[in-house]
């Protein structure tokens, strides 16, 4: 395989990355921003995991008849990154709840207006 075919996973990764980053920047709703942030972070999981997989590769256990092994390390790393992502999302949502209690809105422009008004 050459050209686009062998780079398909990277194309998907870059698309998700840009889409996520765009949502974070373009949306004023605090929850939608967090959705974008999650998409952005998730794209990185693909960046790590996709190159670690060899087609036809097995888990790295030495056994007769298996010569090709996939790299297990990216999975372990990304397991950590997923935990970090979940924690970030949980904290972000908790802050959004507190902001809604304090301001009565989760739209960024309205929050700024109310700060100027008070």
């Amino acid at each position, binding site marked *: 395989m050459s050209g686009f075919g062998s780079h398909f996973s990277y194309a998907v990764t870059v698309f998700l990355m840009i889409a996520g*980053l765009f949502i974070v920047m373009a949306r004023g709703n605090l929850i939608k921003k967090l959705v974008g942030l999650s998409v952005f972070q998730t794209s990185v999981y693909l960046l790590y995991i996709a*190159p670690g997989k060899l087609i036809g590769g097995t888990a790295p256990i030495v056994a007769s008849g298996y010569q090709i092994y996939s790299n297990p390390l990216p999975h372990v790393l990304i397991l950590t990154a997923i935990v*970090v992502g979940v924690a970030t999302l949980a904290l*972000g949502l908790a*802050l*959004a709840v507190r902001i809604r209690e*304090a301001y009565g809105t989760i739209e960024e422009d309205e929050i700024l207006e109310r700060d100027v008004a008070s």
Partner: protein
Amino acid sequence: MSIGQTIGANLPALQVVTPLLAAPLVLLLRSPRLAYAVTLAASFASLAIAIALWQQVATMGPISYAMGSWPPPWGIEYRVDRLSAFVLLLVSLMAAVVVPYSRTSIAREIPADSHTLYYVMFLLCLAGLLGITITGDAFNIFVFLEVSSLSTYVLIAFGRDRRALVASYQYLIMGSIGATFIVIGIGLLYLMTGTLNLVDMAGRLAAGGTSRPVLAALAFLTVGISLKLALFPLHQWLPNAYTHAPSAVTAFLAATATKVSVYVLIRFYFTVFGESLVFHKLPLPQIMLWLSLLAMFAANAVAISQNNLKRLFAYSSVAQIGYITLGLSFDSVNGLTASIVHLFNHGLAKGAIFLLIGGLVIGIAKPGAVPPAPTFDRLAGLARRMPLTSFGIVLGGLSLIGVPGTAGFITKWYLILAAMESGQWWLVAAILLSSLLAVAYVWRFVEVAYFRAPPAGQEERCEAPLTMLIPAWLLLAATFWFGLDTSLTVGTATEIAQQLVRGQ
């Protein structure tokens, strides 16, 4: 092996594990008084370990510690050299100063039922910052970065003003984008080198030459870390976060968080990529130089027009970061010396100023009320009411300006030396001119506090409590000590810079 030897051999692990384990312990204890005692013990233990590590490195050279006895490059390596020992010392010193201070400070600024949680988050933040500094594993840097960042977001949200919540949310978004950029950079490096160990990675990058993914990794890491250290156009999260966070949190963050990010940048630039890649293949020095100059002038100018003292010094922090990155951009021993020294010197001075502002807001608060924001209209005639606090802030300001005799002068001296070395005389003028801007914003405080009469009916003394003044004045004393006796700071920094800038 005796217990002493066992502890001595495992100091690198203990440096991070002590605050990390103290955090859940504090959470289980619940009682704020016990929580304070454990936090105090843990932060002083961290300081003691950092000092012991410093001495070990000074006598025996860099320490490589294999976590769980898995030898590097397979296992996670903790690596302490002169640079990381220096930053460990700064971070744990600031923690040991801020914890005794924060007991009085948070009693007024944070609701009583959240005090235990404050200590938990403080310990986690400390563990994260120490972890970033000590680890020799690229992915481990990211994990500790997130440990410290997530706890920082919570610490900022403890602020009583509702704007603290928005500041924390904004920082969470910006910080997570920065951290994700860093993971992308590390991921690309892992794809190209097949290793996560920083030393191993450096060896393979040097052997493998430069390819486009490596340059992309460099770019991603630069942008990600610059977000974290608040390099000029990426600094938007910082003023709000510093202004609305509780005073003790602002002081700790201003002195440590951005400094540790600078450490990560130096680590990646000089240890992993090597200066030939960073400074010759990409126009990074020019970009750094111009962004630093913009930070020095724009942020200082914005600082002058601020009406809130905390926000004023927050913008001043952005400008001071400019001096640090300016030193990096020279790619010379003197420039890097200036950067490393300024990490320490600015940490001391800015830490002291924010600690004093914490005392100041308590002084101007009505008894029992939540301290108000330190806006200038509330500070009129303050020098008569709080002479020690006001004088301390002015002394800290002198170090920000770079008056001879203060630690800030040492930095500017080495920056100017580096500028003259590279033949860029106009930079000398720029450095001096930006210092004049610092004079202007410090003068604004002097003018309001010393030359205006206090509002009628508020002439009585209201000095901050001693538990808050003593930590701040200790840092101020250190600022002047390191302005006169530079053997510890400059001596170490020059040695580090000579090792990092190869071929000199």
